[in-house]
């Protein structure tokens, strides 16, 4: 490269193409947006619902039985799988961020690999919870 001459390089006019389709995000991007969405859903409606059920189930024997019967419904169990996944995914993705903060697995390849591990762990934890409650 001859940089001695001060002729500026011709501006690159080729169009830049950013693939903004969320489905084509790399794994770290996918778990990042899932982390945010699961966090939002955990704040509302899961958090107030959880506090309400905790209170109602501890309040009285009747309340306990009522909520136990409610959570025995198959449809409710399916919803609870989603709730479990939101918590589990937020949990594992958060641990990954804590590790990245202390510079563990910060390279591109390990970061991709750990993102896939987070995705798998979230699903596995949900399946285990489903297995234990079905």
């Amino acid at each position, binding site marked *: 490269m001859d940089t001695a001459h001060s002729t500026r390089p011709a501006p690159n006019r080729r169009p830049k193409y950013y693939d903004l389709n969320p489905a084509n995000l790399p794994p770290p991007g996918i778990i990042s947006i899932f982390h945010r969405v699961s966090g*939002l859903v955990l704040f509302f409606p899961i958090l107030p619902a959880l506090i309400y059920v*905790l209170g109602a189930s501890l309040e009285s024997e009747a309340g306990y039985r009522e909520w136990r019967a409610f959570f025995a419904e198959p449809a409710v169990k399916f919803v609870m799988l989603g709730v479990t996944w939101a918590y589990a995914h937020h949990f594992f993705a958060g641990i990954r961020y804590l590790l990245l903060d202390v510079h563990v697995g910060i390279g591109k390849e390990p970061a991709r690999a750990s993102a896939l591990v987070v995705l798998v762990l979230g699903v596995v934890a949900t399946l285990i919870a489903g297995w234990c409650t079905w």
Partner: protein
Amino acid sequence: MHLVKAYTKNPVGAHYGLGDWLLQRLTAVVMVLFTVGFVVCLAWHKPGTYAEWKALFSGTFVRVTTALFFVALLYHAWIGMRDILMDYIKPTGLRLTLQSAVVVALLLYLIWIAQILWSR
């Protein structure tokens, strides 16, 4: 002259960023520890009746750690919700209103949880 002018700008904002960043991580660690402990506790005791369920939350240790978990959770949720609102809600008035609503909700949850854990 332009150098002097450049230095009159505050380049680091309101100074709460690092503290919040750190607290979001500290509260996360508290919640990880509680979550693991609570899952182990549930798997160990398998509370299957109202009496057992109530007994689980009547011990001082469980009450205090559960309260600690929720305090961590509420602070963590505040930082997370504030980040989300700052990212997507551009009009300042609306954003501050929503942020205030989040703070009020979280403070009410705190009172609610204390009442649940210590009213019996």
